[in-house]
């Protein structure tokens, strides 16, 4: 049942986005229906929760890591659900009338529903990590909603600030939650709630506390992270009413209350939470007095009230926790209604600036009355709900919880902040609804549509009813919530308007009369119309934030890059090699390393000779690479051949086949590329001509290379002379035939046991081929590479000189014998490829080797006949082969789903073909066919793309030079 709370809003969000943008009513109805369903489900669950049960819903997510999709509803979560869904319904109704014709309404409601789902997720999460996920989702959706009018720069800035602040807080909170998970040994909320002592006594307690507080305080806009909330007021008013007063900003205090049983009550908690809360309570209220923007005033008031809740939670007494929960509900009702009223004023007059608004009572008496009742609740006037929780707050403030200056200061700060609250509430009402008739309003004000006001009617009624008969209305719900937090520690408390003449009542009286007095004292200052509070307005949070951001992400980053970074590849490579050396050597140095005895005996002289050649080739290739590229390439091929023979020698026939074929293709590729490199001829310089710096650098690189080579030699010798430890090899050897149906274990591993790796690998090959193709499409060779090669020029000149010859004859005749042979080799290569492919599962070979072999067949045709000759005769569609190959491979893998097995499960059979005999026919062979087709396509695509340059480039060259010639003539 609980999954409805997550599924319905998110599914609804996905559907809502597809509503046509002119269907405002329908989209609103749809969103409202979803919110209403969620609300009704919540209401329906009340009897279960009220009887003390905890509803749970669990889906396994990554159980190995303790991550589960656990939803959990106790009384406290229920209260929040009720709040979120009920106010959600009202806000949808309100937004239906608030949003303008030209606004993209489907996007608004889609985001709205997504937010509702995320927020429900936060309160219902039964797993700490899941909670963090939903927490971040609310931040992201809030970002999108604040930036809803993204053509407005304020909206964009506000959205960015809000996301940065709450996002960073969310990250630190995640770290804190992970540490809690480690302390408790589980991320499950029930397990965490049951291990309060373990957490409080853990040495990391303060770290965890600070990390989690950073999350909670940023989310609930507590000082000094409060400044994002006023900027978030650039959002449409329904968003402000819903996210930034009633629900999302409550997530921070929700988390504090949720973790209250396991984290509260310590000195650190009291100081950190209390100090943040008291500062916010006081400063928020003070700043609110000086706002000129209606929503700004309400935003600072929200900050202040959140501070009040934070203070209550900091006190660590159960009674204070009750008051905190009560105030969460009360604040949501009166503040949401006030935001909606502010939105109506904005909507009907065209401005929210209090300097321009006045005397609106005569135009909208009903709205004015409602707003007055709601702000009276905000100010804490008796007979309204705000009064009750404020009285409870006062009562707690005068109690002594811990003997320290903060505790002593609390009652005074509380009274002063309440006084400020009265002042700004009074200012809101007095300056907007009273005074002279407004003169310069953009629109003529009037009452809003009936149904736009309905949500306010309802919320204000709730304020009144709860304020007058609290015990009969909110009482049982509150009690259910409180019990779920406090359990056995739930204190006796009474929700009543009249508790007799006591200190809290006197404090209320002082605050009320003081606040009224303060307002009339400050009227002359407020009338000057200066935005923001004196002195403090110079300290603008946003400006500090921007400066910090610029310093961090631009100035520091740039200077770091300048000092530490380089755009040159060589220093980077050197660093890389150096780091690799350190990484390779450090475990040997730390853990110790004994050199094995040197065994000279038993060396096959032929093998030694082979490697003497190999070593000579490697060194020669390195020496020649600068001035003699072709020689270097040939020597590289020599080293490759030695490697290949080593594989044959040491029982790895598959590797040898593949290495040989790849070596051929690589050599051809590089040969094709050589033509486009600049000529480099060794100068007559001797060793003395080379500058000392260059020689020093070469020596350093040489030393690095020697150390790297020597190190790898040492390690490989050491490892290879030790006996093989227990490995997974036995597993594969034992099952290759029984389960994979092939005798070639390497091939079975590749196409069966580790088939998914191979799929990834051929996908990489595919991507590389496409990249090569795309890069070469835009290839523009340098001018000095464009001319016809010298040999061709000589041959063409010869043809021109002899009248009996036509141009190109010599070029064709030059390779006449080889080209005939190569042409005839095509079917033979095809046969070889088929042979390699068919025997692959049982003997060395396989799809990969076959694909490369086949591509060699194609490239031979290109070499013998030239590009045009081949393409006139053969249909070559490498792209098509690649896609078919990938499709076959994936389809084979997916085919096993049809039989109820996991992806890429293989099935082995033998089939008897005429003449050829028994052929292994595992479904893995089909997969191998995909590999074959893809490898063939990819290799041919790369080779052809490179070969085509020789045809394309002269053509482009001719095009480019022709106009010049014509001009010259």
């Amino acid at each position, binding site marked *: 049942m609980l999954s409805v709370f997550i599924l319905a809003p998110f599914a609804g969000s996905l559907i809502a986005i597809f509503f046509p943008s002119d269907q405002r009513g329908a989209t609103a109805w749809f969103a409202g229906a979803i919110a209403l369903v969620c609300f009704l489900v919540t209401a329906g669950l009340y009897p279960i929760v009220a009887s003390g049960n905890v509803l749970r819903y669990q889906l396994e997510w990554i159980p190995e890591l303790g991550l589960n999709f656990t939803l959990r509803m106790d009384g406290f979560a229920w209260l929040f659900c009720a709040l979120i869904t009920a106010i959600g319904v009202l806000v949808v109704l309100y937004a239906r009338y608030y949003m303008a014709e030209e606004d993209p309404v489907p996007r608004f409601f889609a985001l709205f529903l997504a937010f509702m789902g995320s927020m429900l997720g936060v309160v219902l999460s039964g797993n700490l990590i899941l909670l963090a996920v939903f927490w971040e989702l609310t931040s992201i959706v809030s970002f999108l909603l604040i930036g809803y009018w993204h053509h407005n720069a304020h909206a964009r800035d506000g959205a960015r600030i809000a996301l940065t602040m709450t996002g960073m807080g969310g990250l630190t909170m995640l770290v804190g939650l992970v540490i809690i998970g480690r302390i408790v040994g589980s991320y499950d909320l029930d397990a965490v709630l049951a291990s309060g002592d373990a957490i409080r006594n853990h040495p990391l307690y303060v770290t965890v506390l600070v990390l989690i507080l950073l999350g909670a305080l940023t989310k609930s806009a507590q000082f000094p992270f409060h400044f994002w909330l006023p900027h978030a007021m650039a959002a449409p008013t329904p968003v402000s009413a819903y996210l930034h007063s009633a629900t999302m900003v409550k997530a921070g205090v929700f988390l504090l209350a949720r973790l209250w049983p396991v984290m509260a009550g310590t000195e650190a908690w009291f100081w950190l939470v209390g100090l943040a809360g008291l500062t916010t309570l006081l400063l928020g209220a003070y700043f609110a007095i000086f706002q000129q923007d209606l929503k700004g005033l309400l935003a600072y008031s929200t900050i202040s009230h959140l501070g009040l809740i934070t203070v209550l939670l900091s006190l660590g007494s159960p009674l204070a926790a009750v008051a905190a929960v009560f105030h969460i509900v009360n604040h949501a009702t009166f503040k949401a209604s006030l935001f909606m009223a502010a939105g109506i004023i904005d909507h009907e007059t065209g401005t929210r600036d209090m300097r321009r608004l006045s005397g609106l009572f005569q135009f909208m008496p009903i709205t004015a009355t409602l707003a007055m009742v709601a702000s009276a609740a905000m100010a804490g006037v008796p007979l309204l709900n705000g009064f009750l929780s404020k009285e409870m707050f006062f009562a707690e403030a005068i109690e002594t919880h811990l003997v320290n200056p903060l505790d002593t200061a609390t009652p005074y700060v509380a009274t002063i902040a309440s006084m400020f609250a009265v002042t700004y509430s009074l200012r809101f009402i007095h300056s907007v609804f009273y005074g002279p008739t407004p003169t310069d309003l953009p629109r003529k004000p009037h009452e809003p549509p009936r149904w736009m006001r309905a949500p306010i009617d309802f919320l204000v009624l709730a304020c009144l009813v709860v304020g007058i008969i609290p015990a009969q209305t909110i009482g049982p719900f509150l009690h259910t919530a409180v019990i779920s937090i406090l359990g056995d520690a739930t204190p006796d408390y009474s929700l009543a308007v009249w508790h007799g003449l006591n200190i809290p009542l006197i404090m209320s009286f002082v605050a009320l009369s003081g606040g009224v007095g303060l307002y009339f004292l400050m009227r002359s200052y407020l009338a000057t119309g200066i935005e923001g509070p004196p002195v403090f307005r110079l300290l603008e949070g946003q400006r500090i934030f921007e400066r910090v951001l610029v310093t961090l992400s631009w100035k520091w980053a740039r200077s770091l890059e300048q000092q530490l970074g380089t755009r040159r590849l*060589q220093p980077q490579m*050197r660093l890389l090699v150096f780091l690799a050396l350190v990484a390779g050597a450090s475990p040997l140095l730390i853990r110790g390393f004994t050199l094995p005895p040197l*065994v000279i005996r*038993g060396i096959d002289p032929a*093998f*030694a000779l082979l490697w003497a050649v*190999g*070593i000579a080739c*490697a*060194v020669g*290739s*390195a020496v020649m*690479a600068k001035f003699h590229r072709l020689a*270097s390439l040939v020597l*590289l091929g020599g080293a490759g051949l030695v*490697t290949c023979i*080593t*594989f044959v020698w*040491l*029982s*790895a026939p*598959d*590797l040898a086949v593949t290495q040989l074929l790849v070596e051929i293709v690589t050599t051809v*590729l*590089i040969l094709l590329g050589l033509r486009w490199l*600049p000529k480099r001829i060794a100068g007559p310089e001797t060793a003395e001509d080379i*500058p000392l*710096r*260059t020689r020093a650098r070469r020596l350093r*690189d*040489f030393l690095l*290379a*020697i150390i790297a*080579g*020597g190190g*790898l030699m040492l390690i*490989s*010798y050491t490892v*290879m002379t030790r006996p*093989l430890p227990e*490995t997974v*090899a036995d597993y*594969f*050897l034992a099952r*290759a*035939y029984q389960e994979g149906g092939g*005798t*070639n*274990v*390497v091939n079975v*591993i590749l196409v069966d046991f580790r088939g998914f790796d*191979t799929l990834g*690998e051929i996908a990489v090959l595919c991507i*590389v*081929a496409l990249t*090569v193709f795309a890069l070469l499409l835009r*290839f523009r060779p340098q001018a000095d590479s464009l001319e016809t090669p010298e040999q061709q020029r000589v041959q063409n000149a010869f043809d021109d000189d002899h009248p009996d010859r036509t141009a190109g004859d010599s070029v064709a005749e030059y390779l006449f014998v080889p080209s005939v042979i190569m042409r005839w080799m095509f079917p033979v290569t095809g046969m070889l490829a088929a042979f390699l492919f068919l025997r692959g599962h*049982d003997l060395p070979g396989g799809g990969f080797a076959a694909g490369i072999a086949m591509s060699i067949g194609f490239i031979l045709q290109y070499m013998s006949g030239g590009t045009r000759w081949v393409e006139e005769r053969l249909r070559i569609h490498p792209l098509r082969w690649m896609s078919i190959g990938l499709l076959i491979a994936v389809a084979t893998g997916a085919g096993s789903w049809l039989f109820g097995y996991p992806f890429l499960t293989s099935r082995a059979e033998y089939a008897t073909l005429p003449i050829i005999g028994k052929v292994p026919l595992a479904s893995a062979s089909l997969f191998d066919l995909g590999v074959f087709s893809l*490898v063939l396509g990819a290799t041919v695509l790369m080779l052809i793309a*490179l070969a085509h340059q020789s045809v394309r480039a002269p053509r482009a060259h001719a095009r480019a030079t022709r106009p010049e010639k014509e001009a010259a003539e």
Partner: protein
Amino acid sequence: MELVLSTGIGVLTASGVYLLLRPRTYQVIIGLSLLSFAVNLFIFGMGRLRVNAPPLLEPGGVGDLVRYTDPVPQALVLTAIVIGFAMTALFLVVLLASRGFTGTDHVDGREQRGD
């Protein structure tokens, strides 16, 4: 055998690393190829060197490490050869494109003083 092969791996690595640190793109591509031979042989050597024991089973048979060499490093190296080929091809084309765009075959796309 081990001594010869490890010497070979060492020389291939040293040549490869030295070329990797050179300024010309062609040197780097040859260096990468040499280095990938070395690394492939190194990984292959982790399964120990055996003569005449290829991991090709008797039909219907069950293999063990006494009669056959370790197939796992071989499978890994087979993959490595393929990826190495793809890498070389890609690098070659990037090299050519860079030369086409910048007119030089220096790894940074422009000549540095003193190289």
